[in-house]
């Protein structure tokens, strides 16, 4: 038997089985159903962590998601996950957890010396201390940068690991009519009411066990223990096909149109995951309406030493006793400002603890509370307050003094009382985070001394403690009503009777007991009451400034236990009521969310791969593949021992001398169909397409609305009303969007349909002096001679039994043909062409050689059509029709686009016989020590086998006027400087003779 495990209670654990785990290397045992917090408490471990700033010893404060202290790191092999609340972490065989923010150990933490310098580390410490001097070696931010590594090492909330996470994460979409968040009595009633209507219901509960406080309240519902009642409701709901139960699921975000984000911890509680099982699942739930039954968080009271291990929220201790069968201490004291806390004393007494004292700031308490106090036993002190705690790393006693709640004043002498556990309760704060995210400000309720949810601005309905109703009977009736409303029903069901002590939870307006010593408001970030007052004195009085200056309410718990006490102290300092200070608006997420779950199925697979029909052939031939957007394209087909340059030079040279074949399947292809297709193309291209005969293709330029170049490509007229437009690989999507926009918005009257057929066609461009001969030997059912297939002509035939469409056009400058076939036949046709080309010396070539061939010819691509250039900049003026308007024609002649100092296309030749780099600047005077006065930049560079020199295309001020002139490349990033000659961008065969064989 564990030292703190009681004989009674413990409905959540299986006492007949043990699980073994380690904490800070020491072995412990617990039971299935235990959280790490309950199991450690059962083993008598009260010290579980060190605080953020002062490294003070800390114990378990809460029992759920609100836990600020007991954050641990879970180790799984090399993978470490920090900041897991021990209160949510379910133990399993083999669990390895370690404490955080201590060195060398939790017991002996050197940085605890920070406590001695407590005054130094007050609010604004960093801002004040690390402003460097005005002059000197540590001026400005340098001093901060010097100190930062040491500060970061000393402070913090655990350490992230560097090992790759081997787990998988998933996203899941769900739709329902009613989402119920929270499965306590209110949530269960709501789900039951909504489910009975036949509507689809999702019930989400962040805890592992559904039922909420019915599992530990010790009450009866409908004449049987509340936990049994909850189990029966859940069994009923689980049996309904229209209900989905999601335990271990935290609804953390409330977005527009009743869209919710939730995190399901699918496998965190398992020693071993099943094959394919995700660790976390990110649910996106779209609900017609939602019931918020998220309960409330108990507030601690602020008094000196309130963070000592052994101080625990009263309801948390009650929960540990009733649900886990763990008593948090042997000699227990209670300190509160409201009736409801007395229930906890009874639960711990039933578990075997001695109640040594019950301390209430109020002088008058209800007869029910008095009766509960007397039944619990111990010294009963009303009109008193705890003013300090005693002990080192564990509580050994408390100091109590007379207290006047109305005047907030202490009197008399403090007296010490021995206790190893102090239960505190300062009232309740409804968990209104989701409602706050939905967009409305909470409202202050004086009797409950709490912020209540706003009026529903969206389709949500609140119930139970979320509404400030902490009694179970109200939760049941409100839950039923909310569930009905959410399902669009009227009427009400008779709520089952509730049996219990019937203690109210309206607290006295006491949040802090002012006495000497550190009194913590925000346990997680070590923010004290003095810090809040300092913030006030220094002018940071807005609630938003208070948060940022003191860090109150930040970090993983987001101030679930500290926000309201912090506001109350600020309100008192300012002399205004609490609602006047305001409250921060909650943002998602409600609780920490794993980044893996947000990445979901993209974890490890950031983008899909887009493969051409010939992809496997390229890979099998040893091509080095290159990512071009989502596409993968061959860069080179290198031979053993070849460098990239040697490979592309060989490939490009072979194209000029014999023939080459390149996979052009990635070119964007858009079917432009309909009776207005030709007219539409006239409007979107700068040149005329309506005059293009069927069976012919034409090169076209497209401008944006602002007159700058958008894209270029050839468009083939396959039928009177049927065009096949090709775009550059990179701009396919952009052009499609542009055209769809024009048809949808600008010219909806045009009868034109656009369809992406990029994937319908495999494309192979075969070019070079031998290209026609190769084609003639491979193609049947059509001639390919000059008469049958003139430049820009199109014919249909077959290659090795597969239908093909061939267009004679060239990007390389050689006589060339693009052979299109159905994508499913792509590899077949490609291999047939390769076979046919073998006797002629045909080689496959990749993008590098393709780039080389086009640079030699001065053909432009996306490197030159870069979103900043005009047709004139690239000397494509001849493509601008004067006979018709087109998109961009009204704006392309703007003054700025005609200016003399625009950069224009030129060729560049390296004069030092060294490679040139894309992106390098062109300058008139070389000055490596002080690079300046750029007159343009290189857009694309290569070694030209045709010229035997390193050449490039560039955009340079003056353009043609500089032909024959000397300049320099200036590339400070890569340290490349050297002389160049500016020449025509038509380096090779400027007359285009080779195009015709």
């Amino acid at each position, binding site marked *: 038997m564990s030292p703190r495990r009681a004989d009674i209670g413990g409905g959540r654990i299986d006492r007949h089985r043990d699980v073994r785990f380690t904490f800070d290397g020491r072995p412990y045992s617990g039971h299935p159903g235990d959280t790490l917090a309950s199991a450690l408490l059962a083993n008598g471990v009260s010290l579980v962590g060190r605080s953020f700033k002062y490294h003070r010893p800390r114990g378990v404060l809460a029992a759920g998601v609100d836990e600020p202290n007991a954050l641990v790191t879970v180790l799984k092999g090399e993978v470490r996950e920090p900041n897991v609340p021990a209160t949510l972490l379910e133990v399993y065989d083999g669990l390895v957890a370690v404490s955080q923010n201590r060195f060398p150990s939790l017991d002996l933490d050197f940085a605890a010396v920070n406590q001695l310098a407590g005054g130094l580390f007050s609010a604004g410490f960093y801002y004040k201390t690390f402003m460097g001097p005005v002059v000197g070696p540590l001026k400005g931010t340098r001093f901060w940068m010097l100190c930062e590594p040491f500060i970061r090492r000393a402070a913090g909330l655990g350490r992230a690991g560097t090992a790759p996470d081997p787990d*998988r994460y*998933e*996203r*899941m*979409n*769900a*739709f329902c009519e009613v989402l119920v968040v929270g499965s306590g009595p209110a949530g269960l009633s709501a789900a039951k009411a909504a489910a009975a209507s036949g509507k*689809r219901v999702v019930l989400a509960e962040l805890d592992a066990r559904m039922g909420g406080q019915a599992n530990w309240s010790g009450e009866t519902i409908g004449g049987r223990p509340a936990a049994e009642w909850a189990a029966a409701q859940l069994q009923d709901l689980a049996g309904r096909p229209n209900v989905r139960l999601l335990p271990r699921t935290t609804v953390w975000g409330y977005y527009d149109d009743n869209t919710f984000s939730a995190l399901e911890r699918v496998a965190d509680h398992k020693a071993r995951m*099943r*094959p*394919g*099982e*995700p660790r976390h699942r990110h649910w*996106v739930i*779209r609900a017609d309406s939602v019931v918020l039954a998220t309960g409330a968080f108990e507030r601690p009271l602020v008094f000196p030493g309130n963070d000592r291990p052994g101080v625990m929220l009263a309801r948390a201790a009650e929960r540990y006793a009733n649900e886990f069968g763990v008593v948090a201490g042997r000699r227990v004291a209670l300190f509160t400002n409201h009736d409801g806390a007395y229930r906890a004393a009874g639960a711990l007494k039933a578990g075997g603890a001695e109640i040594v004292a019950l301390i209430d700031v109020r002088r008058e308490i209800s007869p029910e509370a008095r009766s509960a106090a007397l039944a619990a036993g111990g010294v009963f002190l009303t009109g008193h307050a705890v003013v300090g705690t005693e002990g080192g790393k564990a509580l050994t006693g408390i100091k109590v003094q007379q207290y006047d709640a109305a005047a907030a004043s202490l009197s008399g002498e403090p007296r010490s009382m021995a206790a190893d556990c102090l239960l505190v309760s300062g009232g309740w704060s409804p968990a209104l985070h989701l409602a706050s995210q939905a967009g409305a400000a909470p409202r202050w309720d004086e009797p409950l001394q709490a912020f209540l949810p706003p009026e529903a601005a969206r389709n949500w309905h609140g119930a139970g403690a979320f509404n400030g109703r902490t009694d179970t009977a109200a939760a049941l009736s409100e839950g039923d009503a909310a569930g009905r409303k959410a399902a669009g029903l009227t009427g009400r069901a008779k709520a089952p009777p509730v049996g219990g002590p019937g203690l109210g939870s309206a607290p006295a307006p006491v949040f802090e007991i002012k006495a000497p010593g550190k009194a913590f408001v925000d346990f997680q970030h070590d923010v004290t009451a003095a810090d809040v007052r300092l913030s006030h004195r220094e002018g940071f009085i807005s609630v938003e400034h208070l948060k940022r200056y003191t860090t109150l309410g930040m970090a993983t718990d987001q101030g679930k236990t500290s926000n309201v006490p912090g506001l109350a102290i600020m309100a008192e300092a300012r002399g205004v009521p609490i609602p006047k200070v305001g409250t921060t608006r909650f943002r998602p997420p409600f609780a920490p969310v794993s980044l893996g779950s947000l990445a979901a*199925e*993209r974890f490890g*697979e950031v*983008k*899909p*791969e*887009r*493969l*051409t*029909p010939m992809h*496997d052939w390229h890979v099998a031939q040893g091509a080095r593949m290159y990512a071009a957007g*989502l*596409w993968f394209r061959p860069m080179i087909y290198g031979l053993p021992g070849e460098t990239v340059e040697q490979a592309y030079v060989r490939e490009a040279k072979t194209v000029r001398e014999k023939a080459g074949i390149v996979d052009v399947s990635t070119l964007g292809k858009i*079917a432009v*169909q*309909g*009776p207005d297709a030709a007219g539409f193309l006239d409007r979107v291209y700068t040149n005329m397409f309506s005059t293009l005969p069927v069976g012919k293709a034409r090169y076209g330029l497209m401008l944006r609305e602002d007159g700058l170049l958008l894209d270029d490509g050839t468009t083939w007229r396959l039928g*009177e*009303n049927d065009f096949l437009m090709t775009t550059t690989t990179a701009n396919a999507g952009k052009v499609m969007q542009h055209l769809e926009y024009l048809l949808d918005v600008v010219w909806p009257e045009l*009868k034109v*349909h656009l*369809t*992406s*057929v*990029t*994937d*319908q*066609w*495999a494309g192979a461009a075969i070019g070079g002096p031998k290209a026609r001969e190769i084609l003639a030997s491979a193609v049947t059912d059509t001639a390919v001679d000059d008469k049958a297939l003139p430049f820009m002509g199109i014919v249909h035939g077959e290659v*090795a*039994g*597969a239908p093909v469409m061939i267009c004679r056009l060239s990007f390389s400058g050689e006589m060339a043909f693009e052979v299109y076939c*159905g*994508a*499913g*036949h*792509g*590899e*077949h046709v490609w291999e047939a062409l390769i076979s046919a080309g073998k006797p002629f010396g045909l080689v496959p070539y990749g993008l590098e050689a393709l780039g080389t061939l086009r640079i030699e010819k001065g053909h432009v691509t996306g490197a030159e059509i870069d979103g900043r250039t005009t047709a004139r900049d690239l000397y494509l003026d001849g493509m601008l029709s004067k006979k018709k308007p087109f998109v961009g024609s009204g704006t392309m002649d703007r003054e700025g686009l005609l200016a003399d100092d625009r950069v224009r296309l030129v060729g560049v030749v390296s004069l030092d016989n060294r490679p040139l780099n894309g992106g390098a600047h062109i300058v008139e005077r070389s000055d490596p020590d002080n690079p300046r006065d750029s007159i343009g930049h290189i857009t694309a560079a290569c070694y030209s086998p045709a010229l035997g020199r390193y050449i490039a295309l560039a955009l340079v001020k003056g353009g043609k006027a500089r032909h024959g002139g000397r300049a320099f490349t200036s590339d400070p990033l890569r340290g490349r400087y050297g002389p160049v000659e500016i020449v025509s961008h038509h380096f090779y065969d400027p007359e285009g003779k080779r195009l015709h064989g």
Partner: protein
Amino acid sequence: MVDALSPLAPVWEPGTHGDTSAGIGVGLTELAPGSIVQAAAWPGEEKALISAIAAVAGLELPDGAGGGVATEGKGAFGFAPGRFLVTDQKEGLAAAIAERVPSAMGTVTDLSHGRTALRVSGRKAEWVLSKFFAIDFSLAALPVGSGLATAHHDIFALVQRAAADQFDVIVFRSFARSFWAALRHASAEVGYEVS
């Protein structure tokens, strides 16, 4: 005639995979229809086009957005205003429909090579597809035969419910292998059979 090569051929692994401890959650297969055709009507011509599809393919499309019909080996559904996707195990459907669709009625586009049709079937089909698409796959929201256009990140997809527990997902051919890998990944949890 040359057979069309599936983009999935190198990664095709028939058999059971994943966690089959609770049985086979889904079956995954490639349909490889002989014809995948897009037929699109000009405004006002939708009914005429539906009649043309019915005459050629024998598929009686209901009038209305997302409506569709699925039979053994054939399917058709509207995925955008006036636009329909028609599939048939037989080849040559595009040309056959085009003969009945004059330019005044609409257009016909053959996508037989450009799209890859996958079938996800079984008791966990809705569960697996819900990992990909923000679509309500319940029978009430997506009745048998109906379909829609959607996307999974970069991958555009057309989805048709072929039967109560059977969905056809049609993606661009170039993305098919990536999508197939993702589909297998998502199905591993429930156990799947490739056939």
